[in-house]
């Protein structure tokens, strides 16, 4: 365990909350800029996400009639807290100091909370658009969660451990899981896009169909909190996939001295998450939204099927390695 002073610096400053907020806003800027350039537009300047956040915080909070105000205030904050906590367990500069066996399960659990929050918001706003959006959010959750969890389970199976940091460290001695388990990598990326509710899976928030789905009645600071929560969600999700499939902040050789390893790991972490962001942004720009029943078909037929195939392959590979 690390000393309390270091723990406070880790949690609050770097690579904790301060870095997390800055990086989340930076990734939102980069996402919008890359997509804009792909569409031959200019895109927003670097300061835009900060400006958006400040503007949203300053807007009036409108409570629809008959809605539970305390819950409406609390739910975006709960979502924000969940993703911020999830980020603490992902390796950023080497092992996460809070790692323990089973933290993969904890991170996955925490990362489902924003979707549940959207569903609750949709249900609580007494608004037909939000209700339909909330129901779509939960339906989408049921469809992609099974393949996504299976895809993240297979690296754990091969590494033989339930801790994200140790899975990243296992890849230091062997190949990256993106190479060893390409099917799981693809499913993890698709599942991440569905988790983050980005096109082609932005069904709960479909602007042209149901106004803004569960986000319709969010205004002012609640919208700011939820928006920031989803930005951090992008960082946490990319960091998780980078740790599990691209080796996290570690290189195939060990760097001495330790502090140099931390700095190098930090920049390697940023590089790998940027690569994942590039893939996700291209995916978002190149597709249109699909319908929820079509997602149902694709999810259960192809995604779930492929993840089970990948699981079978990993089990076979494991037994072959043990015997050899």
């Amino acid at each position, binding site marked *: 365990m690390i000393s309390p002073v270091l723990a406070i610096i880790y949690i609050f400053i770097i690579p904790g909350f301060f870095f997390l907020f800055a990086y989340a806003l930076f990734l939102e800027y980069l996402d919008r800029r890359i997509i804009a350039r792909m569409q031959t537009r200019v895109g927003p300047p670097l300061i835009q996400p900060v400006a958006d956040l400040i503007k949203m915080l300053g807007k009036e909070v409108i409570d629809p009639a008959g809605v539970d105000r305390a819950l409406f205030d609390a739910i975006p904050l709960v979502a924000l807290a969940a993703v911020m906590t999830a980020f603490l367990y992902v390796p950023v500069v080497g092992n996460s100091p809070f790692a323990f066996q089973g933290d993969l399960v904890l991170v996955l659990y925490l990362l489902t909370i924003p979707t549940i929050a959207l569903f609750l918001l949709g249900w609580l706003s007494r608004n*037909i658009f939000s209700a*339909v959006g909330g129901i779509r959010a939960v339906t989408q959750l049921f469809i992609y969660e099974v393949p996504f969890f299976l895809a993240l389970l297979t690296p754990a199976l091969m590494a033989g451990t339930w801790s994200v940091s140790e899975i990243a460290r296992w890849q230091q001695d062997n190949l990256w899981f993106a190479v060893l388990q390409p099917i799981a990598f693809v499913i993890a990326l698709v599942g991440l896009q569905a988790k983050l509710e980005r*096109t082609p899976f932005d069904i709960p928030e479909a602007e*042209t169909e149901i106004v803004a789905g569960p986000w319709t009645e969010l205004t002012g600071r609640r919208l700011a909190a939820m928006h920031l929560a989803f930005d951090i969600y992008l960082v946490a999700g990319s960091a998780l996939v980078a740790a599990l499939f691209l080796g996290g902040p570690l290189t195939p050789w060990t760097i001495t001295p330790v502090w140099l390893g931390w700095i190098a790991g930090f920049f390697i972490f940023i590089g790998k998450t940027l690569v994942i962001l590039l893939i996700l942004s291209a995916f978002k720009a190149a597709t249109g939204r699909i319908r*929820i029943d079509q997602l149902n078909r694709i999810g259960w037929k192809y995604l779930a099927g492929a993840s089970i195939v990948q699981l079978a392959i990993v089990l076979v590979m494991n037994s072959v390695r043990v015997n050899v």
Partner: protein
Amino acid sequence: MPEVVIPIGPQHPALKEPVNFRVIADGEKIVRLDLDLSYNHRGIEKAAEQRNFIRVLPLLERVCGICSHSHATAFAKGIEELMGLRIPPRAQYIRTIIAELERMHSHLLWLGVAAHEIGFNTLFMWTWRDREEVQDTLEEMSGNRVHYGMNEVGGVRRDLSASQVKAALGRLPSLQERIGKYVDMVNNQRTMLVRFRGIGTLSKEEALEFGTVGPTARASGVDYDTRRDDPYLVYDEVPWDVVTASDGDVFGRTEVRIGEIAESIRIVRHCLENLPEGPIRVNAPKTAPKGEVLSRYEAPRGELVHFIRTNGTDRVERVDIRTPTLANWTSVAHELVGQNLADIPVIVAAIDPCLSCTSRLTVINSRDKKECQVSFEELRRKKKTTWAGGGPA
């Protein structure tokens, strides 16, 4: 989920103009819908009765921004027929060029909007950038990007100089290449195929029964195009083909519209290269003789009909505009029943609705099938409602 009423409109991100669908949905499937069209009524037909033939054309142009030249040309053509005028060939060619450029920009706009409705914003941005080429051409020729003001009774107002013709011809090859790319994209892009195929299918019999016009009908295999079957301007001298499809779904309509852009490029190129010399207008008399004329025109959205009655003065006595969108709404009301909630914007966008053209204020009692004159007091209380699944509209 039990049956719920989902209000689509009058203000909704899916709609570009106000129309009210009250959709009654069971879960994600639509059971019934009510349609209310009167939000954009501006009384243009009445205002047109008080302006003489010079001043009425800018008014009629402004019925719709996207098909403004269609309205102006249809009216001018009708009045010229009543007066017995033959306008010079150069004027006919210039009117055709502007008409086809307008069709191109309207269909490119539609392609972008259809992509936007399914969340495919990339195609939206690309098509609208290509549309800028057409808009630049129109601005060079007529002075404005919409409401071109090229028409007057007796011919056109502005001539095309040689440099304008050259610049326009120079833009056509790149547009043609982009259209080829869009055909490719639409046929291969998985999400577009999945969202457009099989949605909003209208068979040929249904298309004829509901009176659909334009690309909506041609996509169902109805081989009718006013430019070929009731020719006006120079469409009988220029080589071009009518584009039809057989699917009758939204994908078919996409194919028809992209095909029409390619045909328009062909027509514009032919007209620009073969522009005859001569005057661009004749002197029109101030008054029109007594008479009635039905002027038909193929607007980008379908067949546009202007019924004009004159009584020997310098104004019209009555102009009645039947726009193509009005004819297509019944098919939307019919197609939406049984589809998913997520398909509403796609099906509505597929007829290329232009609510500015459409709004009507007649009261039709569909049970007795009688039309009646209503006083202003009654008008304030009633509104036009069309029921789908009840009786024919």
